[in-house]
């Protein structure tokens, strides 16, 4: 096995950062259970998935998480924090 490129969509960026994912997208303020957005918001879901897939092509620094705003989500939820 030579390895498989991956990209993570996370709604718990601090928790995910502990595992240092090779590529990751955090849709800013999305709640747990809404990784791609809300039910039926297909255009938003497409946008989030497209942005995540584009990270495969971008020269991101492995282990970092890219935060992206999606105002159409319409809510902001504080992500879970990791006790330091």
């Amino acid at each position, binding site marked *: 096995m030579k390895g498989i490129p991956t*990209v993570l969509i996370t*709604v718990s960026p601090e928790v995910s950062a*502990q*595992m240092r994912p090779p590529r990751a997208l955090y849709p800013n303020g999305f709640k747990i*259970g809404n*990784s791609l957005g*809300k039910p039926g918001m297909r255009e938003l879901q497409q946008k989030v998935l497209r942005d995540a897939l584009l990270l495969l092509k971008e020269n991101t620094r492995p282990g970092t998480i890219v935060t992206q705003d999606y105002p159409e989500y319409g809510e902001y939820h504080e992500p879970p924090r*990791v006790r330091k």
Partner: protein
Amino acid sequence: MTISRKCVPFTPFEGELDRATIAIVTAGGVHLREQDPFNIADELGDLSYRVIPEEVDTKQLVVTHHHYDHSDADEDVNVVFPIDVLRDLQALGFIHGIARKHVGYMGYTMQLKAMYEGTAPQIANEIDKGSRADAVVLTGG
């Protein structure tokens, strides 16, 4: 915050997205209705995973997970397992194909070593052998 001391397992993506076949691996507890549900009674978590076929109808998918509110995923599983969204992107020509196999597991465990050394390589192997995926989208809940 404790950062993993393991190196970042970075695999370069070579090629173009519009030539790529994509798989989904979700920790959101997604599986086929006909498959055994994850064992939420085990306080240590369930280390097993379920293979979800390419042609799955989202009506066949259910969520078994007791560590997040999956009521939205019950209504539209694409919020954690975006298989229809992937199909949209394929129809738009943004990606080339949908992998033959996708994977759901329950992303909660007190058995980290077994998850890391057992389940994770098994899932990677499942994707590597026969899914034809060029890249994987990972989601949590």
